[in-house]
């Protein structure tokens, strides 16, 4: 089991109790009066059978508040995901914080910020690098690259899933694009691991058929679920943090009900992925103030009131095109606000250029960031040894020193985190050692990982199974006229 980081204090509360109640009650009102659109008759029938008021023409299920609250209670407060390697199993929820790798459509050049399509080899290498990074516990679907050179778009998700099975033994999320969930489920089962299934809303207040089909497939396979409703404040959600919290909350609680009806007791984590709209271009603003406020409110609502595990995706990307100061601060302040307010999973490593690009070098830098954030929420020990009262007394005022004491020698490594790629040289050393930047040092670490790290191998039989399932997928899409 991967340990993750353990938060040792009550999470930061952004909202007062009465604000929290107001938002929860308003959410119940949206679910009961406005309802959620589910583009699936099967889902609507199931919801009707379980107490929802269904309008089949509009495809809307109105969910009474007692039904919503009943299914919130029935959703586990934590759950385990079985990895290919038992050491990489994770238990999502409680006071545990895990980090998840980010993604990008394409490969970005670290020097120029130029973006191009990644090759299959680059995709596999990026997965292998993430396998080697200690702070990556969990992979998203279609990661790290949404597109791979030479792979037709419809085959990207199954191909990406296969690459993650071959090049990492860590846990991974499935995708929901047309029928990919059928083949990703088979791929996971072929190597005896679980996926975390996915069901993503199309805001406002709607679930497309693919998302619902994916949820049926994944829950039937006995996989836990990752639900999300990526909305943009001012576009597909109200522009205000309070309004966007309510609409996003309604989207996610609506599908909590559906999933618990599909398979009672299914573990679910709710992902908050709401960004303010750029009012000049209409684009998403990753790393903006609104992301922090929204995520902190969401974490408080879900961890305090609902006791359902949370994922935060705000730190996954930056609008910067480069690995630079902006991408550094945008990802870090967002991830820190998430961690302090009790997120169970933070999506962080490697994404820049507003979802358009990824680079493993940034993942390596983010590995240090994740360690510092994780260690921050673990706080520090307060006991006789760490308080060092006798020592302070014996050292006394100047010329006393702590450097020549066993206490310092024995404790500093426990108390510190030493970043692997930060530049901490003196100025003169920095000059003589080739003026290396963090990026240079991360590149060196990347090369070292590529030449030394070997992921836990799959068996030749499993390898054959993967090829066969991918061939089945190609045939399936050919028959459907999609390939």
């Amino acid at each position, binding site marked *: 089991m991967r340990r993750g980081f353990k938060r040792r204090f009550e999470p930061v509360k952004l909202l007062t109790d009465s604000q929290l109640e107001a938002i929860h009650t308003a959410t119940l009102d949206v679910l009961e009066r406005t309802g959620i659109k589910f583009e699936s008759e099967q889902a609507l029938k199931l919801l009707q059978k379980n107490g929802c008021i269904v309008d089949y023409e509009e495809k809307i299920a109105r969910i009474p508040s007692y039904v919503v609250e009943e299914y919130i209670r029935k959703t586990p407060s934590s759950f385990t995901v079985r990895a290919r390697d038992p050491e990489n199993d994770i238990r999502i929820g409680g006071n545990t914080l895990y980090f998840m790798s980010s993604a990008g*459509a*394409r490969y970005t050049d670290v020097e120029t910020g130029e973006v191009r399509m990644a090759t299959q080899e680059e995709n596999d290498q990026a997965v292998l690098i993430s396998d080697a990074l200690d702070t990556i516990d969990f992979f998203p679907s279609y990661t790290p690259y*949404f*597109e791979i050179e030479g792979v037709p*778009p419809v085959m*990207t998700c199954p191909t990406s899933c296969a690459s993650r099975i071959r090049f990492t033994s860590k846990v991974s999320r499935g995708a929901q*694009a047309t029928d990919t969930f059928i083949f990703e489920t088979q791929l996971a089962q072929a190597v005896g691991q679980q996926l975390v299934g996915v069901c993503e809303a*199309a805001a406002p207040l709607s679930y497309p058929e693919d998302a619902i089909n994916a949820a049926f497939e994944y829950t039937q396979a006995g996989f836990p679920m990752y639900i999300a409703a990526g909305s943009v404040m*001012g*576009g597909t959600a109200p*522009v205000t943090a309070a309004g966007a919290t309510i609409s996003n909350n309604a989207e996610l609680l609506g599908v909590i009900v559906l999933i618990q009806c599909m398979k009672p007791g299914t573990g679910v984590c709710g992902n908050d992925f709401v960004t303010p*709209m*750029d*009012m*000049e*271009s*209409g*684009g998403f603003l990753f790393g903006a103030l609104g992301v922090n406020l929204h995520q902190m409110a969401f974490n408080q609502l879900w961890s305090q009131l609902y006791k359902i595990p949370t994922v935060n995706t705000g730190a996954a990307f930056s609008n910067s095109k480069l690995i630079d100061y902006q991408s550094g601060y945008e990802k870090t302040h967002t991830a820190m606000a998430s961690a302090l307010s009790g997120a169970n999973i933070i999506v962080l490593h490697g994404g820049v250029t*507003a979802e*358009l690009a990824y680079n493993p070098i940034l993942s390596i830098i983010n590995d240090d960031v994740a360690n510092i954030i994780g260690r921050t929420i673990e706080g520090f020990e307060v006991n006789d040894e760490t308080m060092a009262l006798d020592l302070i007394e014996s050292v006394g005022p100047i010329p006393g020193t702590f450097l020549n004491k066993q206490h310092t020698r024995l404790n500093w490594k426990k108390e510190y985190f030493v970043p692997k790629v930060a530049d901490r040289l003196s100025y003169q050393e920095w000059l003589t050692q080739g003026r290396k930047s963090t990026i240079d040092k991360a590149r060196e670490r990347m090369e070292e990982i590529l030449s030394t790290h070997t992921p836990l191998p799959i068996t030749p039989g499993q390898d054959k199974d993967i090829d066969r399932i991918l061939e089945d997928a190609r045939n399936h899409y050919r028959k459907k006229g999609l390939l």
Partner: protein
Amino acid sequence: MAVDILDELRNMVTQFDIDNAEAMARKAIEQGVNPLSAAEALTVGIREVGDKFGTGELFLPDLVCASEVVKNALPVIIAEIEKQGKELKSLGKVVIGTVFGDIHSIGKSMVATLLFASGFKVTDLGINVKGEKFLNAAKEHKADMIAMSTLLTTTMMEQRNVIEGLKKAKIRGKVKVLVGGSPINQEFADSIGADGYGATAPEGVKVAKSLLGIE
């Protein structure tokens, strides 16, 4: 009197008065305003908003709300134009939409609004538009241009499919094709045989004008 109400029509666009737009247009028509002048007043208003959007003085919600004012007011005015047997002049007819498989509407709506503000007649087919629908709309409206938007790397190839469809229907020569969307660039636009590409909405309008030989 008539001058006042034309001013009012223009002002309701620049003041984003969505709720009163239709009633105001109706009032103008009832008062016997020339419907062509009424339409022109709306265009002047939205052009003013579009210009201020271009210079960064106004923002996307302003542009979209001004466009809503026009959308609410225009049908009444167009009905009157048709009733009087007149014709609304335009720089050209554009059919616009977000391609099949893609449900992102913001970029496309920005371009549609700015094209309208510039004096084009715009038919907005919305989102998730199948190739066939682009084709039929282009024929039906005798479009001078098809404008296609995509936000996903997985749907950008759909733009090529539409262009291939135009070729098969033997109307490729009659209609210009403008493409845009965050994953694409000039190189991609050239590779699929589009006539023009705009990286931003205002640039898209500029390219649209130059493709149709408009100053």
